[in-house]
């Protein structure tokens, strides 16, 4: 939880929600678990304002609460990872669309927008976006079941007992076995019917949720695991061949049910299991699979290795080593873009050979010695490389001291992750600034679009459109282009963040 990460998260809260929610989130991020009263005092907000903000953040799984029995207080703590999931939400919905189609994408998008939803709420919300609503509930339900079975959506902890007077916080629990338990369609239909009747009879929205309503949320861990797999498959596709990448995809799919989360490598999968599991449309024969696996274990040795000989050969995908390679690739790319190709060569040698003397660097890199010295000291000054001094004599005299240069990949990864968070924050801040600067124009365009939708005649439409001057139109185009660039850059920086933080999670 660095300062840069806190800054990035507060920017996300400000842009997506409002300043009050940002203030509360920022306070918790900077000060750790806190009480309601303390938050109100320190932030200058009223108690009920803090409560509203907390309610919102809790619903979005961004704040958790615990009861501290020693101090007899309820403590609220922030979950920065779930706040940053907002930035990654487009990647999550794209992933679901590619796997299960538009209906599933709509379900996940609605749950992400609302934090926690009951199944009737989900079905009702998604149905509104459908043009053809015939048999819509059943379609949505089936897609939902598919998402739960593949663990992309899970149940939220539910109220174990009704709250009594003495309980300071609700007792929310869930068993491992219940996490992916979907009620039958008939039960859901009944519940929806009951809700509709209550709505009709009371003639106002039913705000109070039933105590036994089951709420669902997106399983961020599962999405991150999916992105992890996609990243490795993409790297292998580039390094080896797209067909080889499909074999790795099958291996990962086969092992995902068997391997627990957070492990450095998958459970070994046998050759014959893999052959059976491969999609038939790839037309990969026994012989071809054998050849691809041989090539993979040589050309992509950091990503996949043979573990044993049983069942025709046992193969595992290595997450830790694979992400170490990807992290190093990012470090090299960053050094290359900032300092040049010669610097990239120097840092690659140091990452490959651990402790290297200046003279060896000059010989191996074949760069002019003066330039090589300049590169090494620049990288040293910017903390990409570190130096160890080994004295030949008892006194530390430069002439009689060995200087060994090396790269501490973990330290550099943390430094770059920090930089990435700062960049993310800057992109969001710039976006908000651009929107503020062009607010008048944006509002004007919105109003014009709303009116244009009601005008039928093309001549009248054209006449009305002349209300926006060419200069304003150009300005609006510039603004749209700027927003596009900033959104795209945000996604790209988040990809770097994902690789660096996944690598660091394995190296802990």
């Amino acid at each position, binding site marked *: 939880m660095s300062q840069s990460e806190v800054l990035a998260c507060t920017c996300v809260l400000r842009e997506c929600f409002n300043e009050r929610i940002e203030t509360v989130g920022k306070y918790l991020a900077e000060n750790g678990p806190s009480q309601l009263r303390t938050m109100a005092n320190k932030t200058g907000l009223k108690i009920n304002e803090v409560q509203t903000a907390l309610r919102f953040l809790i619903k979005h799984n961004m704040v958790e609460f615990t009861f501290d029995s020693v101090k007899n207080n309820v403590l609220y703590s922030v979950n920065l990872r779930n706040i940053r999931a907002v930035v990654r939400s487009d990647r999550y919905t794209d992933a679901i669309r590619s796997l299960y189609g538009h209906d599933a994408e709509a379900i996940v998008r609605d749950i992400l927008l609302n934090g926690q939803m009951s199944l009737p709420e989900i079905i009702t919300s998604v149905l509104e976006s459908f043009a053809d609503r015939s048999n819509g509930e059943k379609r949505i339900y089936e897609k939902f079941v598919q998402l739960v079975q593949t663990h992309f959506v899970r149940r939220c902890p539910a109220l174990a007992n009704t709250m009594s007077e003495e309980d300071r916080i609700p007792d929310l629990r869930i068993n491992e076995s219940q996490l992916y338990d979907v009620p039958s369609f008939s039960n859901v239909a009944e519940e929806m019917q009951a809700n509709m009747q209550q709505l009709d009879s009371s003639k106002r929205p039913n705000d109070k949720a039933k105590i036994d309503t089951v709420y669902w949320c997106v399983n961020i861990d599962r999405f991150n695991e999916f992105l992890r797999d996609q990243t490795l498959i993409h*790297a292998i596709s*580039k*390094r080896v*061949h797209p067909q*080889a990448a499909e074999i790795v995809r099958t291996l990962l799919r086969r092992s995902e049910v068997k391997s627990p989360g957070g492990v450095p490598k998958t459970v070994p999968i046998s050759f014959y299991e893999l052959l059976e599991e491969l999609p038939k449309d790839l037309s990969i024969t026994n*012989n*071809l699979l054998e*050849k*691809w696996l*041989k*090539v993979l274990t*040589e*050309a992509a040795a950091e990503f996949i290795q043979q573990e044993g000989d049983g069942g025709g050969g046992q193969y595992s995908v290595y997450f830790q080593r694979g992400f170490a*390679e*990807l992290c190093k*690739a*990012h470090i*090299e*790319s*960053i050094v290359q*873009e*900032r300092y040049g*190709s010669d610097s*990239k*060569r120097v840092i*690659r*040698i140091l990452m*490959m050979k651990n402790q290297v003397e200046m*003279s060896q660097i*000059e010989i*191996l*890199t*074949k*760069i*002019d*010695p003066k*330039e090589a010295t300049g590169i090494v000291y620049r990288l040293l000054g910017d903390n990409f490389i570190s130096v160890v001094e080994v004295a030949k004599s008892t006194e530390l005299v430069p002439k009689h001291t060995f200087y060994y240069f090396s790269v501490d990949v973990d330290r550099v990864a943390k430094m*770059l992750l920090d*930089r*990435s968070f*700062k*960049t993310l*924050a*800057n*992109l969001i*801040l*710039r976006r908000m*600034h*651009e929107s503020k600067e062009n607010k008048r124009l944006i509002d004007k365009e919105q109003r014009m679009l709303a009116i244009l939708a009601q005008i039928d005649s093309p001549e009248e439409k054209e006449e009305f459109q002349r209300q926006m001057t060419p200069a304003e139109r150009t300005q609006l185009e*510039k603004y749209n*282009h*700027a927003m596009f*660039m*900033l959104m795209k*850059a945000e*996604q*790209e*920086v988040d*990809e*770097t963040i994902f690789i660096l933080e996944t690598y660091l999670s394995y190296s802990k």
Partner: protein
Amino acid sequence: MLGGGALRTVEAEEGRTENRISFHLNKDGGVLLKLAVPSVASSQVLDIDENEQLVLQLIEEVGNKGIWRHEIHRKSKIVEVQLNKILKNLTTKKLIKPITSVLAGKKKMYILANLEPNESVTGGNFYSGQQFDSEYFKMLHAMCYKFLEDKAEEVRKLPLNPVEQRMRTFLSTSDVHEAIQNSKVSKVELKPQEIDDILLTLVFDGKAEHVVRTTAQGGHTNYYCAVAALIETSGLMRTPCGQCPLLNDCKEGGIISPSSCEYMKNWLTF
């Protein structure tokens, strides 16, 4: 006196012949005779004194690697002023010559006049004088990469199974050497070790992969093939903040801020 197990070398000169025989006494008191290598120091009709002879001998011993002036001083224990005179004298008599090493440009080194300095001193074909010829090296570097890439492209089009494709993509050091010779881009003939050095820099650039295969005769051959990058440019470097030297000073509301950033402004109009 002889100690137990001690060896003493007794040199005998037979007049002024070229050969030297050295006598070694082993611990049993027996005498071993050894024919020593002809020495420049003693073989010529030299009007040099003992000290000059000693210096010349020290220079001869290191062969074509060259010896640092300071090292001669340390080993011979001759005073600096005298040593300088001796070296000047020997140079004038064309017995030795001064050279400079690429690794330590400021060190004055000496070598026998009739020898050519070793590659570790001259730097080989990549050095013209004392300067590393980076343009020449970059040209060779780019050429080698092109050969590897062309080979990979050629093999990709063939209907081979993955293992054969991979094997055929590799080029040995001698394959690349031949290709460079045939292309006639280099006026000098490069040595195989120098080709290896160039190809290794491609490996260090992340553009090539290196494997060692054992030959039927039991030797080792280096093979290289072009390799694709693992990632496109890192996302961080596609933003102005990735390159910015002032990121640590950048703060909303400050003099340097994302809202007022010139780099951002230029980048957004791109």
